[in-house]
């Protein structure tokens, strides 16, 4: 059954007609054609499709598109400012937090959520927050290092802003 939905995705308002059975991940990938959100499993285990819905990390295969009606969504494409990378993206590059790159969008979105809740997470907290994001290539170590590095980069950016404001 076709349904009309509207939501805000990466700061843009979107009005769509979608099939009511369509998963949010398919709406994002196939209707809005933001292909950076990946599909890695069909049982909501892998976390490759993680996006931010109303401030929380959500596996977008666990939600129907119609359930996102009226909500605010951020995807991997929404965290860069033009060509300026987000500190988390910079940190993943500097600490080589990926090999094949397939899980990376989901990893970065989970990091985005974690670091918006916890400024300075411990390694144990990072591991716990990432227990729903699977990676087969890296053995996770470089991802954890990237997230820790991202929190440092975000701190130093905040300090820079504070200094400039003074």
């Amino acid at each position: 059954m076709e349904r009309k939905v509207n939501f805000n995705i990466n700061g843009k308002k979107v009005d769509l007609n979608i099939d009511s059975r369509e998963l949010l991940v398919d709406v994002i990938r196939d209707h809005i054609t933001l292909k950076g959100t990946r599909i890695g499993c069909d049982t909501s285990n892998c976390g490759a499709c993680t996006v931010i819905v109303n401030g929380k990390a959500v596996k977008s295969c666990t939600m129907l598109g119609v359930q996102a009606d009226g909500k605010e969504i951020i995807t991997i494409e929404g965290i860069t400012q033009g060509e300026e990378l987000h500190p988390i993206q910079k940190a993943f590059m500097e600490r080589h937090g990926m090999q094949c790159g397939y899980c990376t969008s989901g990893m970065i979105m989970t990091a985005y959520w974690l670091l918006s809740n916890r400024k300075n997470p411990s390694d144990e907290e990072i591991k716990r927050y990432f227990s729903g994001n699977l990676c087969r290539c890296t053995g996770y170590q470089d991802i954890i290092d990237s997230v820790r590095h991202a929190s440092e980069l975000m701190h130093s950016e905040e300090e820079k802003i504070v200094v400039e404001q003074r």
Partner: protein
Amino acid sequence: MRSEKEMVTGRMQYIDDIVMDGMLHMTVVRSPYSFAKINAIRGGLNHTDFNSEMKSFGEGETGEETGPGETMFAGSHAFYAGQPVAAVFGKTKYESEDNADSVEVDYEPLKPIMNLNDSLKLGPVHGSMKSNVLKRTLLGKEFSIADSHIDLSDSFMMERIATNPIEGRGLVCHYDDNKLNVWISGQSMHSIKSGLCGTLNLPPDRVRVFHVDTGGAFGLKGGMYPEYAIAGFASMKYGKPVKWIETRREHLMASKPGRGVRGDITISARKDGKILGLKGKVLVDAGAFGGSIAEFSPRFIGYQITGPYAIGNVYVDAQALVTNKPPQGPYRGAGRPEASFLMERMIDRLADETGLDPVDIRLTNAATEPFKTPTGMTIPESRSFLQDAIRELGYRNFRKPERPGFSFFALLPASSPGEGARIRCSEGKVKVWLGGNTHGQGHEFFVKSLLSTEFRIDPGLITLEYADTDMLEKGEGSWGSRSAMVGGNAIIELARRIIKRIEKEEGHYAPEILLDGEYDEQDFVSYKKTLISYGANLVTADVDTYGNVHVKECRSYYDVGRALVPHMVRGQIIGGCMQGIGQTLYEEISYSEDGTLLTGSISDAGLPTAEKIPEFTVKYAENPSEFPHGAKGLGESPTIGVPTALARAIELASGKRIRNTPVRPDYLIG
């Protein structure tokens, strides 16, 4: 190629991101039964439309396969749960999945063979065979040892594991202007091309295969599968682009898993730990069909079973046995971890029997000079590397009661038969094509690093292009720890040919001449030897009262020849260590006795999460190889060394003999 910046911004273009006008989505209808007679199929594309047999399967292919080979669709019987029976299509993936309901299949379930014992005991699965023994090879020769003090026998099983890259298999086929164009997530475009030519009966000039960004593979995507031929056939039949994207459940039920190996081993030794002989039976769960790596696996395991040790008497009876499961495929290591597990477990057992330190037994048996094994493998001197490894891994610094597991192994990479490459210099840019295709190992890094050194130009002027069978005539593939080693060697060879040509034409070489000129060189650069290197691991672990294993430390020391791209070397080693831990503790593809798949999700299949990681230490030796860049193989080393060292660590922590992977908590507290 796209690289790290595209990865962090979501701009990679994986196979599922490709959309074409008029594209059909394909859904494969699969047998739910592990073994069944098929009385009738109505609907969909099925074996009455397309009845070709598997041709050319990629990694592990020897050209001597006897089969029985897999047909692209099940015909009179379904031989494994997940075998394609029909294919349906739709304009969207939802529509195509809906259309699966239109297919009716009349199955008559039969009793499947789901383990190696039954395969040996029961009658043949295939009417064309006399027994379920698909292939049998005898390696080394029979012997008897009169003066042996100790004879030890044991039996080991490594269960089947899914490769489980986070991106499954997938391709888009577009038959256009008499040519089948294929975009695919893969490790070897040339092996896919020859598989498609063979199954679709097309000449080479009518098939073109393009590589796209690939989200991991680990052996999964090195060769041919029925779904690829079916998608190609459908695109030709309907005259439209056809896309097929594997779901995770399909991956777990119908892709080719690795391992599935049993070893029954007897060693004869002296009291001082010197091993005088090894006899073994190696049984490989081949799955339902031959014409796959399963025909090669037992022989490969038997060949290298004594690893880095000089053991004078060896006799191995190596067999591949038919079961009602998907055909065996290569999973990272592909025979190497299995061989090492059998040998290393017996050495640890001998240590417990003699009271000697397991590492001292390894020193006693390491080769003090180049040694040709009775199975025909020639290994270089190994004792000095082992001495270094014991020191570098800090083995002797542990004091009782703390005792680590230690492993020592020989890596036999697939360096033969070399690799194909092309270098084209035009308009001030250098473009490179390689026969082995990156799926997360960062080939572009070594390509830039090696060629900027050879040509003395800025690495920014060099790009690794997406593989394309029309742009490179001949290529092998990315597997068997080979790409940086033989792919790197190939591009250096071609670069030097270009430099020589410039020297001949211009009197001298200068980067400006190269960048101002037009040069195009391609060749398959042969290398027929197996370039063996050594490695060792040290692992510590605790076992809690519930039988859960907590891996504390995982240390690696491998001879990488030369680390071409240090961050990739480190990343490959840590990632591989985690796969070794996964195999040992969590991962398995399992079935009930009646053939029902029990591991239908990626977490059931046991993929480890971030919470399971230990402290990793990565060290490497750089003893340069004979190649101009000095590199040796690397990618599979951790999957060889970690399971064996971890098995020993668990044994020491639990007091239970470890014979099988995965090691389950109920076994440890039972």
